[in-house]
């Protein structure tokens, strides 16, 4: 089944400052969309606002997943409608084991521990990490791989990845990108990857690249856009749209 995620005119305020100023994006199942942009352009704000992070105030616009408006829903309901956020800095949750988190999140408990191990191996995460408390004492790279384990178990319709490549070495980045790439065919997962590095795109072929500056999308094009960015940087895009 094909799903759609449509974001229109999204405006979000954080700490009294408007950071997203009318963000638009539309994507379908199985597609890979990449959002690139300089620091401070609002990329992470987008990811957090879509997941309902406390302190992120929506001023206007809409986010619709398969006809359901997400902005009126709780973070739990958004996730249950098929939206997943892999965080840049996943929180430590002391005393909570990954398997208990996944069961509470609605994962099928059948063979769950084994499936978690299989997912861990796909992203080269030491399986003993799965028996520790969620993200506690894990390195930055291990946390991101652990997020991929959750993704593989929860099988969301759309996965947002906030700076998934930061803190990962080249090998780990390859493993994570390959996992995401196969998710797009395994269950037709739509991937929305936020990054400001090109290297993720070597393993994960984008359907579309969106350039974001000052809280909105200023250019959208195919994979070739990343080469232009590589050559010219973000400066030519800063005033592309006003």
């Amino acid at each position, binding site marked *: 089944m094909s799903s759609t995620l449509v974001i229109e005119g999204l405006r979000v305020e954080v700490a009294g400052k408007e950071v997203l100023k009318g963000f638009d994006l539309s994507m379908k199942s199985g597609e890979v969309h990449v959002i690139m942009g300089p620091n401070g352009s609002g990329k992470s704000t987008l990811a957090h606002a879509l*997941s*309902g*992070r*406390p302190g992120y105030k929506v001023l206007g616009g809409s986010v619709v997943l398969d006809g359901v408006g997400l902005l009126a829903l*709780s*973070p*739990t309901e*958004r*996730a*249950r409608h098929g939206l*997943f*956020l892999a*965080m840049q800095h*996943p*929180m*430590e*949750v*002391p*005393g*909570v084991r990954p398997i*208990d*988190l*996944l069961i*509470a*999140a*609605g994962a099928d408990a059948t063979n769950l521990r084994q499936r978690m191990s299989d997912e861990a191996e796909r992203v080269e995460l030491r399986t003993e990490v799965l028996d520790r*408390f969620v993200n506690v004492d894990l390195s930055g790279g291990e946390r991101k791989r652990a997020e991929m384990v*959750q993704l593989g178990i*929860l099988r969301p319709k759309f996965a947002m990845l906030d700076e998934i490549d930061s803190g990962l070495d080249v090998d780990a980045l390859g493993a994570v990108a390959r996992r995401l790439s196969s998710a797009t065919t395994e269950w037709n997962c739509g991937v929305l990857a936020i990054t400001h590095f090109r290297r993720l795109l070597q393993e994960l072929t984008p359907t579309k690249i969106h350039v974001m500056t000052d809280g909105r999308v200023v250019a959208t094009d195919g994979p070739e856009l990343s080469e232009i960015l590589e050559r010219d940087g973000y400066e030519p895009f800063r005033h592309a749209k006003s």
Partner: protein
Amino acid sequence: MNTFADSALSFISERPDAQDRRRAWSSFEEAGLPTTSDEVWRYAPLNDLSLDAFTVNSFPNEHTDSEFASRLCERAGLVVRVVDGFCVDAGSTPDGVRVELVENASSLSGTSMLKRYESDTFALLNKALTPATTVVSIGDGVNVEKPIVIVNSTSGSSSFSSTQIKLGRSSSATVVEYFEGGADALVAPLSEYEIGDNASLQLITYQRLSQSAWHVARTTGFLHRDARLRQAVIGIGGHYNRSRNDAEMLDLGAENELRTTFLGSGSQVHDFRTHQFHMAPRTRSTLLSKGAVADESRSVYTGLIEIEKGAKRTDARQTNHNLLLSPHAHADSVPNLDIRENDVVCAHASSVGPLDELQRWYLESRGVTRSDAERLMIQGFFYEMLTALPHELAALVEQDVTSALALVNVVAP
């Protein structure tokens, strides 16, 4: 018999060591019950306390183990049963372990009980009114493999149990002191542990009394050279739950790890006091106290690290975290240091606050409901403490703590 004093004096007159008990009783009467103007009692709901609500038992009442107690006993190598303060079953002891009942026992500190506890009202009551001290001795070099479980239940309206555990040189054991029952009762146990040179005691004090019990407990560990005491104290029941846990590191290299945990609900008061006394060089103590208070309950943690002059290279750490689960709950944290030596490492930290909002959001963003996220986080707060329990008991205790947690309301402050 009308009053607590009548029943107490009648009980005392029938004991072989009545004279010593009368002395303890007189000291208790002279001191009287504490009042909230005493700094160390200022958080206790003493206005609700009238000793005449209790009577002293001349013999133990009927008692049957709870389901949890039975399951705990299944895992034990030795079960000792204490009912209303009376040791009613000393079990069949494994090799190298002895259980005796001693009237008029001395304190393991080497002095008399009266001298040792002269300024502690409830310990004096215990000295006067305990049927006998249950003394568990573990021989030199003996490693007791399966846990020793002491099931301490209260069916009557009072219990003054006295327990001493003695570990010989290079021995090791795991001991569980489990408390249950105690509806509308005064439960005032006194325990001492002596850990010989290079011996190791893992101790779990699990208090699951009725929510209407008055629980005033005191434990003291005496640690000799290179001795190790790892103690976990979990307090869930009680109208008033006071738990004082002290350790004296008497000789070189002694090491104490103490984890205290409590869960407050309703109008409970949890009052935890600790005293880590470093009397010799290169001794170590690690103390972690964590508690959660819900509804209108309150807690106080007061911890003293004392380092004697000459106790060089001592390492003492104290941490206290409190979780507020309701806007009407309250937690106080009072760390104290008394250091008379320069060449030491000493640290303390404390915090009081609600569940972490971002951790909760993280769980919610995976599809966990708010109430499940809160339940997982509260369980997690306690599970972290239970990681120190021995493997064969951890799952059982974790399950039991979970069932207590399931009854707690969480209201965002």
